[in-house]
């Protein structure tokens, strides 16, 4: 943690101890969410609803790990920018790609003479 560099030993201990609880809570939540996800897919709700919820939950886990375990919320903005740029480009590009390729354009393999 870059911000610990300028802290005294004691401050480090204190912040780390504070974070400890955040970590434990997050771990419990992550475990619970994974359990919910597992159950959710079998529930008889409309599939779009389940789909949306699943994606949101996964997003939530994703952000949770990045923000706390990876300290992004504690750290300098530049790191969020470095990672975020990659995320945004990857997400944008591949979402576009997913729409660019469509099943309609798929043709069976052409065999001479058929």
């Amino acid at each position: 943690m870059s911000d610990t560099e300028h802290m005294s030993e004691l401050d480090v201990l204190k912040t780390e101890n504070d974070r400890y609880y955040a970590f434990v809570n997050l771990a419990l939540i992550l475990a619970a969410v994974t359990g919910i996800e597992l159950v959710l897919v079998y529930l008889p709700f409309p599939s779009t609803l389940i789909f949306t919820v699943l994606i949101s939950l996964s997003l939530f886990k994703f952000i949770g790990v990045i923000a706390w375990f990876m300290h992004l919320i504690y750290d300098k903005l530049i790191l969020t920018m470095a990672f975020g740029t990659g995320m945004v480009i990857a997400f944008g590009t591949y979402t576009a790609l997913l729409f660019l390729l469509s099943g309609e354009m798929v043709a069976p393999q052409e065999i001479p003479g058929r």
Partner: protein
Amino acid sequence: MSTTHTTEVINPSVHNDLADLKPEISDLGLRRPDHSKNVIIDWMTTVDHKKIGLMYGAMALFFLLVGGFEALVIRTQLMVPENDLISAQRYNQLFTMHGTTMIFLAIMPLNAAFFNFLVPLQIGARDVAFPRINAFSLWAFVAGALVINFGWLLQALEMFGLFTASGATAGMNDFVPAMGWFGYAPITSTEFTGAGTDFWIMGLQILGVASLSASLNFIVTIINMRAPGMKMMRLPVFTWMTLIVSLLIIFAFPAITVALIQLMFDRVFGTNFFSVGGGGQPILWQHLFWIFGHPEVYILVLPAMGIVSEVLPTFARKPLFGYAIVVFSGAVIGFLGFAVWSHHMFTTGLGKIATAAFSLLTMAIAVPTGVKIFNWVGTLWGGQIRFHAPMIFAIGFVWMFMMGGFSGIMHSSAPADAQQQDSYFVIAHFHYVAIGGILLAIVSGIYYWLPKMIGKMWQGNLNIWVGIFTVVGLNITFFPMHFLGLLGQPRRTHTYLSGFGWESYNMVCTIGSYILAFGVLLLVVDIVRCFRSKQLAGNDPWDARTLEWATSSPPKVYNFAATPIVNARDGFWADKYGPENRKLGEVDESHGIHMPSQSWMPMIASAGFIPLGLGLSLMQAGVPFMGYVAILGLVIIALGISLWALEGPGGYHLHPKKESN
């Protein structure tokens, strides 16, 4: 104030701070190769960004000649219709390797040479953030270049009857890649091409590792290693462009890395990523390639723009017009570049909506590019333009690049592109931006910075002839190609019938290419003459603006005896002409300068790429035992990296005597 063409003689022994230093023992218990008297060992184990830059430059110039030679053979073959100087197969290998060589082995490393040499100097740093990773990038590049070109060796041996493929590979005679520089599936499948494709895949993969590691290094360097006072908005534009290009590289290369892995799996393990029989879609390769490929062309051109943005202000003796907006438009070009990849695929049946979207986004790129052009003109406006060699090429760059950009705009109109795509019109477009743009800028950079790099000054007026021959040659070679394309000549054709009205154009193009090549040859001669020149350059031969000119030429290992404190954009200029409060300051370095230790490990680790790459390629071709060679390569890499980690960073301290000026 220093005048141009300083002739003061500096006694090289005065500042020799290294003489009394002895190598230390690393954490592994081995002697570090520091301060070796053996020149070869010294260069092979160096972690000095300046030496690494020079090596990149030398290697890249060599490959520029190789690629240029390949182009000359291509042009000679096309001089007259139905020529049979070389076979179709050889021709196809030549243009594939010409494109690959020029882009990955000539222009990219030439840019890397400038990054390496200049960025730490321009930001007032001692070195890059990770000097050993930097050395690793260099040697990985060399390994990749060797793997890609290995096929030529086999092909040459086969041609002279010294080698025939036998055993599992019996009958194979295509060892050099021949599927075009973008290797569209499915011609890259084992059904259609042989070992050449594997060398290409593995070579590009290794080059990718080299580029990625170098780029990560540069981003960290630029963000973290700046001298005090060197705020982001005070960075020289060249450094800004390096930063943007490095970001483009780290976000663009993974796409092709994965695509190459998938292709390799198709070839080696029979997967179905791109093979139609198993449901694969060859079109996917095109998308993945261009997701990388289009940012790649801006990766090539942005450093060139950076160079020009340094040269023009220096020789107009004015600051860059609209600095902030030039930087910003560079970033916009870079990131818009991720949103236009399908303009290379207008003829693949994208559908109306996608075609329209990519058409418009592509046009949008003209705006930030135009901003740069306008600002360069603005820089010259009201200046005091001195036509020294670097300036001649920079002025040529703006002009020629603009022409290349305009044909890009013609491509961006999708229906018009339907007639242009895969014709010589495209060849004309990108050679204007590549040669008229990038190459001229790089030549300008060479003329500008070589005196800094080697401490010697150019002699005579050969540079004018270089300028005349390259600019005239490039226009004679590539201008007619616009017409060739519109008259229907497709690219990548090893020959053509007479009667289509292409003969005279082709003849003119070929003649032009020889004029161009002669220009390049003169450049090489001029560089050699510069190396042998007796005239010393002095710190600041051009009356320049940025920090690298504040230190000696060539700069000492430690770059700056005392880290400068920057108080203005164009800090060195402000130091010379600015008000008192803008002059450079100095950090107190009484505790000495920490220098990194040299190391064998980067080179050893990257040497492992050679057996890995060749092994995997030949294994797929069916050569026995090659799997083991590949594993050996992996072991070498792992070993190199582990020892590298264990030997520790080391380092020593220098106490340079204060420079006199």
